[in-house]
Structure formats: C-alpha cells, structure tokens
C-alpha cells in the first residue's frame, strides 16, 4: 500500500479567499465570543503587517489600522473539506478525511495516473486551480504520510524499509501524537520519533496509554490501521419513530421540519440537491402511506424543502395512525452539478421575481407570499414593512392609525377640517438621520371622511394628509 496525504494547512482561509478576486489587502478570519475575539488565520499581506493566528483582535487593530475581518464559519470549512474529499475520490476509492488533511491510497491508481511524480503533479495542479494551498507526501502508511506531509512537503517514501529512517528525525511535536503526549515527552527529553521508537514500550504504555503505542505501530506499519473511508452518498434515507401513535397530519409538521432539515444538511454536505423524494408514513400493521414529492429543479434550501413537503402532506388523508416516518431520496442530481465550476454556489435556476412569485403562489398557496408587517419604528413612514423585524420587543400600543396609510403625505386641500382628536406629537427617528417633528390630528373633512393629517408642532396648518380611516 502507498498513501498520499494532501495536507490543507489553510483550508478555512483558502475557502474564503478563493471566492474573492485576488488582492493585496490584508484579510483575517476572526473567531471567538464578542469579549474575546481572536484571529484564526491571516493572509499574506496581513501576516506581513504582524497579524498572526491566535492574536487578539484588539492587538491586531493596534498593529494595523485597516484590514478586513471575516467571521470564521466552521460549517463552511467542513463543507470545503468534504468537497475536496469528493475531488480526491476521482483518484482513489480509498479516501480518508483527517483534520486538515485528505489521505488517499494510491498504489492501485499509479498505473492510471503514475508514476508518482506525475501523479503528484496532477494533484498539485488540481489543487492550485481550485485555490487550495497544500503539502503532499507519500508513504507506506497513511499516518506516516500524514506526518511527513506536515514536515517534508514533497517527500515520497516508496518502501517500508526506508520508513523508520525517514521518521526518526521528526520532532515529537510534529508527529501528531495523541493528546498532550508530545508536551510531556519533550519535558522528559524525548524529542524525536527516533528516541521514542527506541524507548521501552512498557514504560511508554504505562505513561501514555495504548493510544501512543498504537500510533507508533500505525506509523511504521507494524500494525494495520482500520480506516473509515469516505463514501460519497448516492441515496439518502432518514427516519424517525415514535412510541405513540400519531393520528393527525398536523402533529407531523414538527418532525417533518426536522427531517427535511436533515435532508438539507446532507445535501449541503455533498453540495448537491434533491429533485424527487418520498415521505413514507408507516402504520402499526406494517402498511404504509407514501407521499412522493417532485420538484422542478434540484433544491436544497431547508425552508423550501419543508414548505413543499408540508403542502403536499396537508393534502394527504391518513387511513390509520402513524408510528414512524421515513424520508427516502433516490434521485439525487448528478454528484458534480453539470455545467459551471464545481464550487459555484449560485442557485442553478434563478427566476425573475414575478415569475417566481407566481410559481410559488401556484405551488405553495397564497400564504407563502409575504404580506406587510407592522414594525416597531415609531415613525408612520416606517411603520410597515414586508419583512418582520428580527427583534420584536413588546406590542405596539394601540394607537389611532389609519387603515390606509399614504406612502407619501400630500397637502390636504379644501375647507379647514374639523379636529376630532389631537395633537399627537411625534418627535423621533433621529438615529438614522430621518428625524421628524410633527403634530398629528384626526380630522373630519367637509365630506365627512375621517383623515389623519399633520402639521408643524404647535401650528394649526397647513395640513398634510397622511392617511384615511375606514
């Protein structure tokens, strides 16, 4: 066996950078709670200015006045990792995901892509094009390749006899030993793998446990490591069971949200979508009711999947109570989406707004279309919005507000109206530059209509009309 390890030392940062035009502006990934923000990774211009991983953001700001700080998102990084595994799958059926690395067995692929220097060049080429910095090493064991990739980029140890010699000079700190073993070993003066391999096994086992011994065995190949290989998913099946029976479709909504959410997560993990899937509702006697869902285009947005499924489910009659629910997706779109770049995350089927709205209305019903919401902004002009505020505090007091609020106030013409109530003084909105000071009145026009009008504070006209009461 021969293992190639592709180490991705800057996975998170590269994942961010590859989506941007190349630039000499300093950029860092930031992580941590609001109180202790620190730098996770820094690009070259940022490092040149003294910014480095582990630094507190405040310190970085003291060093460099302008740089871009991007919030680190572990989920995104994880997705890039899995995508690169999918890429490696082209070259080998045995692909392993380790932290910051992808390890693949290459002895069987050498015939196809080899010899190794050519194969290695191929891998490097791909990765460079994808925009991921990398270090590659080859060794007879997966672990050795993993360790060597960290210390000797480009090293290839082709035969097991040479392995010990190649590993011996490596410092324990770089040998990817379990837990804190490396620190403790260094504190005992055991600094290299060579020293470690010569130390009495019993003594090491006593002090560091079986894990260290195993690690050494796997490294030099005296024991065979059992690896969990990466498998590209081609069919998804998710299930949920209950101890009680569910009789109402409504009661299935919550579990359904979970299931479709999980589906969306799986889909995101493989960077694909789903076009057809089935919800199987299992009854006590073993029979089941199937609801199949078909989409016009591959989808993976959790809300979208949930809404689609729910609207189909709501039209389903339950002949018997349900004790389990399964989601089965056979038809996953091509693993590598056709057409564009593998990593293009733009939605595949963008629709013009009008068309989309009509389609949504047709498929999901009227309720899926947004209506106006009352906001908490005290200014009448800002009192309505299509989207809900993210934070809603308390209920607005019930104030006399017109049913029909004009978008833009207009002068109220005609005879002086009769004042019914007021003035209601509004002085607010300074925080975004839209400060207003007005006295509002409810008035009755000569025609007997009730109107909402305003004028400058303390004045009685000229009147501006702002709305009509029903």
């Amino acid at each position: 066996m021969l293992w190639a390890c592709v180490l991705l030392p800057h996975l998170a940062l590269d994942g961010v950078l590859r989506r941007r035009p190349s630039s000499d502006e300093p950029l860092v990934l930031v992580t941590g709670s609001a109180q202790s923000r620190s730098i996770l990774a820094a690009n070259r211009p940022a490092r040149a200015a003294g910014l480095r991983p582990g630094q507190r953001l405040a310190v970085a700001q003291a060093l460099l006045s302008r740089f871009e700080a991007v919030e680190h998102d572990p989920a995104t990084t994880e997705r890039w990792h899995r995508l690169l595994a999918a890429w490696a799958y082209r070259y080998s059926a045995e692909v392993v995901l380790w932290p910051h690395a992808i390890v693949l067995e290459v002895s069987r692929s050498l015939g196809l892509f080899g010899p190794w220097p050519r194969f290695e060049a191929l891998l490097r080429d791909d990765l460079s094009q994808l925009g991921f910095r990398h270090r590659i090493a080859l060794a007879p064991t997966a672990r050795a390749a993993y360790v060597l990739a960290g210390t000797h980029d480009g090293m290839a140890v082709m035969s097991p006899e040479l392995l010990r010699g190649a590993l011996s000079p490596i410092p324990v700190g770089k040998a990817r030993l379990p837990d804190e073993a490396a620190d403790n070993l260094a504190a005992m003066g055991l600094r290299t793998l060579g020293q470690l391999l010569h130390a009495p096994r019993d003594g090491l086992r006593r002090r560091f446990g079986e894990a260290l011994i195993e690690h050494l065995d796997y490294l030099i190949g005296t024991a065979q490591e059992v690896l969990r290989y990466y498998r590209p998913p081609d069919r998804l099946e998710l299930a949920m069971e209950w101890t009680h029976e569910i009789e109402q479709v409504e009661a299935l909504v919550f579990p359904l949200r979970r299931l479709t959410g999980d589906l969306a997560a799986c889909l995101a993990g493989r960077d694909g979508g789903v076009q057809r899937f089935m919800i199987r509702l299992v009854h006590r006697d073993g029979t089941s009711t199937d609801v199949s869902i078909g989409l016009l285009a591959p989808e993976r947005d959790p809300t979208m999947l949930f809404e689609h499924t729910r609207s189909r489910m709501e039209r389903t009659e339950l002949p018997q109570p349900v004790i389990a629910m399964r989601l089965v997706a056979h038809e996953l779109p091509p693993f590598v989406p056709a057409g564009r770049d593998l990593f293009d995350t733009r939605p595949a089927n963008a629709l013009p707004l009008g068309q989309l709205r009509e389609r949504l209305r047709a498929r999901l019903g009227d309720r899926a279309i947004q209506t106006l919401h009352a906001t908490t902004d005290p200014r009448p002009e800002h009192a309505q919005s299509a989207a809900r505020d993210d934070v809603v505090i308390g209920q607005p007091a019930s104030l006399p507000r017109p049913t029909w609020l004009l978008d833009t106030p207009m002068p109220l013409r005609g005879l002086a109206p009769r004042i019914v109530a007021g003035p209601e003084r509004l002085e607010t909105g300074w925080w975004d530059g839209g400060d207003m000071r007005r006295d509002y009145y409810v008035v009755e026009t000569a025609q007997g209509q009730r109107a909402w009008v305003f004028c400058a504070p303390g004045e009685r006209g000229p009147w501006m009309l702002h709305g009509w009461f029903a």
Partner: protein
Amino acid sequence: MNAYAELHCLSNFSFQRGASSAMELFQRAKACGYSALAITDECSLAGIVRAYEASLETKLDLIVGAEFKLDDGLRFVLLCESREGYAALCGLITQGRRASAKGTYHLTRASLANGLPGTLALWLPDAEPDASDGHWLGERFAGRVWLAIELHRGPDDAARLRQLERLAADLGMPAVAAGDVHMHVRGRRALQDTLTAIRHGLTVAQAGVVLFKNGERHLRAREVLAEIYPVHLLEETARIAERCRFTMDQLHYRYPAELVPEGHSATSWLRQLTEEGIQRRWPDGISPENRETIEKELTLIGELEYEHYFLTVEDIVCFARRQNIFCQGRGSAANSVVCYALGVTSVSPDEATLLTERFMSASRKDHKYNRPEPPDIDIDFEHERREEVIQYIYRKYGRERTALAATVISYRGRSAARDVGKALGLSPDQVSALSSVFAWRNGGSLRHHLQEAGLDFDSPLLQRVLILAEELRGFPRHLSQHVGGFVISDAPLSQLVPVENAAMPDRTIIQWDKDDLDRMNLLKVDCLALGMLTCVRKCFDLMKQHENVSHTLASIPLNDNETYKMIQKADTIGVFQIESRAQMSMLPRLRPKNFYDLVIQVAIVRPGPIQGDMVHPYLRRRRKEEDVTYPSEALREVLERTLGVPLFQEQVMRIAMVAAGYTGQQADELRRAMAAWKRHGGMEKHRDRLFNGMKENNYSEAFAAQIFEQIKGFGSYGFPESHAAGFAKIAYASAWLKCRHPAAFACALLNSQPMGFYSASQIVQDAQRHHVQVLPVDVRHSDWDCTLERDVRDSTLAIRLGFRQVRGFNEQAAQRISQARERQAFLDIVDLCTRASLDRRHQDLLADTSALRGLAGHRHRAKWAVTGVEPQLPLFGRTSPDEQTIVLPPPSVAENLHADYARTGLSLGPHPVRLLRARLRADRYKDSRELSHQSHQTRVRTAGLVTQRQQPQTASGITFITLEDEHGNINVIVRRQLAERQRRPYLEARLMGVEGHWENVDGVSHLVAHRLLDMSDLLGQLDARSRDFH
C-alpha cells in the same frame, strides 16, 4: 400665570432613564419660574444630595420623593411631607432594595400596609386605569393621595383628561397635574432615547416600542402647561408643594454612643484613653510641647463634638492590635498627637512636628464657619486580613447601623462611547475599536485616531455617536461599593438614607457616596487594605523567628543613615511608594535625608506638582541654586516648610484663603471642585475668584496662573500632606527593613504578592544583587510560603522559594506536602505522591519546576518518574513495579530556563540575556553595568527583556520602557513619533534592542531611544511576560 411645582421628575440617578442632572433640572425649573421641584428617582435617593445642593444653589425648593412600581404593576410617587415621612420613605426603599439583587428592587402591596405616615402619594394610572387600584391607594393614604394626570401630546389628550377627571371624581380623590419629567429640555430627547435603548439592551432602531414618542417629558414652560391642563390641576401642584415641609437640613446624624462606659462622658473617656496612651508612648514622661498640643487638640475635639469619632477609630484600631493585624492611620486628624497617643498612627510628633499643628490650625479656622471640615482618618490594614476588621465592625454595631458608603460609577469617555455605539447599532468590532480609541487617546486629533482604528469620523452615524457619548460622559451609571468607607450610626441607618445590597454577598451599601456624606455631615471611617502592611507584618514575624528580634512600626529606629543612603541611591525595589520608576528617578535628585524629606518625596511625584511645574523650583531651592522667596510675608507661614513652593493639597487651600480671601467654606468647595473638575468641570468659577482675589491682595497674575494650574493638576490625584505623612512612615519602615534585613524583607515581599510594582522575578533578582542567596523550590524543604534558611557555613539567611511561586499550585497540596514531610522524610517519588495525595496535575507541576531533584534527579528524569506513578491501592504498598531503565538526556541550561519561566515566572539560573551575551557583545550591545559608566549624551546600543511599558498621563505621548538584563534594569524613553514609526517592535518585542543616546544627569540616567529592534526570536519560547502598566 399660575404657579406650578413639578412633582414627578427623574434625575439621571434613575439610571438609564433620567437624561438630565439635578443641577440642570433645577436651573431649568428656576428659569421657568416653577415654585418647587420634586426629585423622584425610581426607588432611590442616591441623587437626592446632589438635588439638595442644586436646590440651595438655585434657591428653588426641593421636594424629596421617589417613584415606585410594585410587583403587580401599580405605579405611584411618594413625596416627603415631614421628617417622619422621610424616614418611612428610606425604610420603603431599603426594604425594596434589600429584597432584590443589586441594582433592582422588589416591593409588594404588603410593603405599604402601614401607609407610610408623613408621606403624600400620587397615583400614576395606566393607559387603562383600574379604579380598584386607586381605591386601594385611597385607603392606605387617606387624605393624602392624588391622581396624577400626565399629558404628553398623546393621540387624544382631551379624552384622556376627561377620563381621568371622571375617575378622580368617582374615587373622591383630588387630581393634580404632573409631568413625568425625564429631562430638563427637549434637546435631551436623543440622549433619553439612547438611554432607554441601553437599558433594554437594544439598538435604538429596535427599541421603537419602548421609546417615548416625543420630547414632551421635559420641564415645560408654564405657558405651555397652561394650554394643556385646566387651572385647578396646576394650582393643586402648588398646594401639595406647600404641604411638603421636609428639607434635607432637618436630618441629624449621631455617632454611636456605646463606646463610652458607664460613669464616663465621651470627653472624660477619651481623656482617660489618651492619658493611658501617653504612658505607653512616653514612659519617661511627655515633653511640655507635646502635652500642650494634646490639651489644645482635646479642647478642639470637644468643641466640635468629635469625641465619638475618635473613640470609634480607637476601638477599631484596638481590635486590630489585639488580633495582631497591622494597621496605620493617616489623614489630618490621624496625624494629631492624640491619635499618636491612642495608637492610631505611628507617626510620632517628635519626628514630624510640623504636621500636628496643621490639624489644629486648619480645623479651628474652619470651625468659624458653620461647616467644619469633618475629621479625616483613613486606616490602612494588612490586605490579607482586612476582612476580619470589617466583620468585627458588623458584629459590634449590627448590620442595621453599619454600611459601606457607595461609589457612584460614572460614564467615562470609553464606557460612554461603548454603550452609545452599541445602542446606535455599531458592530461589536466597531464598538471595541471605538472604545480602544477612547482608552488610548493621549492628545492628537480624534479624527486621526478614529481613522487609524478604521472608523470614519465624518460619517453621520459616528458623529451622532460622538455627540451623544460626550453628552453621556459624567452621567452616573450605577452604584458600587466604596473601597472601605464605613458609615456607622446611632440609630438604624435606614432612617437616614436607604440601604441596598452590594455586589458582594453580605455587603450592604448606603445610597450616598463620600461627597454626599460630607455634605450631610455623616462621618465615615475608611478601612482600607494595604499590601505593604501585610508585607511588613510578615517581615517582622520572620525576623522574630529567625533573627530573634522583635519590632513594631513604632519601634523601628528613626533617622538610620544607612537606610537614607540606600534611598538616595534609588535602591528601592519593593519599598512602599518610592519604588516606581518615576519615584526612583526623583530620589537621587531630591536625596531625602530625614522623615519630612520622605513626606515630600511621596507627594512630589504626582500629577499635581508636576503639572503645576512645582518640582524643578523646589529642587533648585533645595540645592540652594535659587533663593527661597515667598510671594508675600503672609504666605511664608503656609509655604515655609516646602521652601516657598506649594506641594500639598492643604497648602493650595490655605493659599486660596490667605492670598485670595477664600472663606473656609469656599476653600472646602475648592477642594471638592479640585477632585471633581475632571469629571464635571466647574473650575471656571474658581479661576475668576482666585485671580480676582489674588489681584486684590497684590499677587502677580503669573503666580495666580501657576496656582490655578496646580489646582487643576491635583484633579482626582490630589495628595494631602497628612496622607503623605502616613505613607512616608510605611515607606521608611519598608526601606529600613530592606536595608537592614534584606532576606526577611524580600521573603515577606514574595509572600505578600501580588502587590506593588515588581514581579517575583524582579524581587528575586534584586535580592540576589544584594547578596541574598535564593534557593529553588524543593519538596524536601519548601512550604507554601517562601521561608528563610540559615546557611550552616556562614550562618547567613537564604530565601527558600515556596510552592506559591509555582503557577497553578494549590495551597492545600503544599500543606499536605509539608505535613507529610514533618512526619517522615520522603523516600522516593511514589512515597511523596502517596503520602501527600498529589494528583497528576501537581505531580507534573513539581516535576516541571525541578522540585523533585532530590528524589528523582534532573527535570527529565523527574518527569519520567512522576508520569509512571499510578494511583496506589493502600494494600499493595508504596512501590512501583520494576521498569526497564531508560536513558534520558539532561536538560540544557536554556531548557531549564524556559521551564522555570513557564512554571514560576522566574529563574534562579543564569539570566536569559546572559545566555545571549556573547552574541550581543559581538554586535556591540552594551549591558546595563557598562551603560552606567557611560558619560552623558553618548550614543549606545543595548538590549534586554521588556519588563514594563508605562505611559503616564503626565508625560505627553512618552512611553517608559524598562529593559532587564543580567545586571539590572535600563530605563528607556520612547517618544511618540518613534512609537508610531516602529509600532511593531514597540508593541511586540519581548527582547528589545535599543539604539539611542545615554542621558545621565544628577545620578539619574536613561536611554532615549532612536531605534527599536524586536529581538524576541532569540528567546525562543521564553515566557517572560511583560507587565504592562497603562
């Protein structure tokens, strides 16, 4: 026009609600022609003394009251009609505050059961009033409850007015107009909105529902009110105001009387204790001068009726002495001869005669005016044992009668910018960038600093943030506990001032701070914690144990020449007060040679004298380079002891009185203004008064300007002579100990950490430079504390480092080691780990610090050995199974150094710089010893570990960096331009190389940097953390 009194008004002491200070409110109310103003902060009287002061200043009546909201939502205002009502209000606030966590309150209907006689109630009905609430209040406050009608240009005020008047009529309750005032003028609307958002933890844009819809909640002009309210509602306010006869000056405070035994009066008892003290202090008889002073002092104390205060202080000090807790009083009254006799202070009148007469003259002069300066005694206790004293005070007087004073925490530039920035929706990163601009700002334009932080000064959003933050600056933010000011009263305190919970469990604070206490003539005793007293006491204990000498603070020989020689050389690492770099650079110039010189030394290195440019004139006169002159013969008396240059706070006040014709009361105002002007401003008034007064008395304008500058410099750092004297006493004591008992002193200093200016590493190096041997941590010898060991060969004392030096070591574990070792010496590692029940973490710590060298050999072998220790079962004995031997290389010197610094922050091995010396020398870097022989203005190059970066506020933009090498410290001066040009080495270097020119004047030397070099790479992983003092 109708009279109007505002009966419902919040000041900014309703935290994050009220948007104006009491003074602003009173000035506005006065301008509007109101007949009275009630301050009704929510369940609080924290701002009432300020309101009282504003009321006196504006000559507008204050009505004392508070606003409440019960747990079921019922809201009302209570106003004090009489002294009885005031006590009831304090009681209610105390009850609500004590029943809830710090900063909040909890009250139910049951709390109002007794109807709080002496108060008037205003019911604040909801939008949809519940008549039964009104009815319930009507029963509790029969004949003294009103329905408050508060109209703020809502959607339909007319309807609201009709509704409430009908309700009042139904209930048979009179109605009255009120304003629900949150700000003095409409212009505070934006700030009030911002405060509301801050209180709710929202941005202003999110807070729409909870914001007021308009700015009507201000003190409105009476014409405007007349448009809104019917006449009878306005007239009713004046009638209620008439009824509220209570004023704050009706409060009388009495000191606890129980310290006087039966058959004695306070006067006779104080006399007896003083006489007993005289016997102790002067067993051979007191000098006629001191006797005379004591008689004068006792008379004065009697006239001012301060006997109880002195007795209380004496009692606390007595307790401390019984418990062998070191303490020392300071302050003007503490430096009296009576206090020396009572044992409150150890500053003997024989060594500082000048001080004692001060207490007399100052107090007597003030006494002519109706408000004598309250006696001022601060008592410092050993910091590790102050809690015992506090508990004693609580026990003795009971929790009802004792509480800590409050400290009002106010918004400063930084916190204001942070809170406003958040409320206006800046991102967390922008907020922290903004607040760092405010934290680090030292001169330079704000625009420039903001741009550096990546913020756009000109953006409208940032402009709003800056304007509002400036408005908010100085506003009170919350109450905190004073560091140690106890208020003790004869009657329960809660009749005098509300008491609330502090953040610390079992601590209660009153709602007033020290300025409020001064104003209300409440006496407080400051029980403070002082690390150096702990150190001195520990040092005395060590000397008794190892050198068989007994000492107290008072028994230390005065005028010890060797000690003063040491001080003059600035060899003062670890000495109280005079160990800072600024102090050290002054010592060789001032060359203190007696106690009073030390008093001056302590006081002179302060922002006051420095900013007032008093230091150099004083030094010149002292060196006889300049004649001692006085601005006038009248000021000779005031300035004689400081060679005609004012250095102390008291002198500045006396100058104001003598030269500018201030009365005692005005001088006292000046003192408070001095402490507060940085926060509140308000010095302009004094500027004019001083200049005019001095002009009248024929003083030069230049002199007036100089005095005024100095007054500003004193700011919140004002340092009175009476405090300097107390500190100088401790400074001398610690200097004497360092000089005469260096091993015991360094050992005690290590055992009192953290305190002072220097790290354990610096203390140890200093001890070594004074030829004190320091021995490493060792399980065969060490205890938790550092100890002294007598060398069998030359019988000198050496310091054995204790386990406390090991980062992360647990005190109990250390004690288990000591106890196990006392029973029997340890056989081997397994024996040690078993008998002292050491867990894995402690085993590792011991191995890493080489504390196992006697049992297992070098560090690597120790580590191998401890990691092999398995949890032992008692049955199977205490041995490990035989193991195959392993050959481990011994650690190198650098590795040991690294491990030492990592675990203990200090190393007894060679200094890290020494390891690099050959290399540094090749590059022509000089060490600190070579530098000291350089002549003035030589260009040199040196390198050392950065142990301190200090940017004092008095030095505009200059940073003092201290470098340490194997021979000592090098003081480096970095100017702002250099710091900005070489930001990275300036901020980051741990090992710094510096090129510059050497300055050496009057025995004070430093290196003015031209170029900085980050040489940290040479250190590898060395863990010598810089102590940044900013």
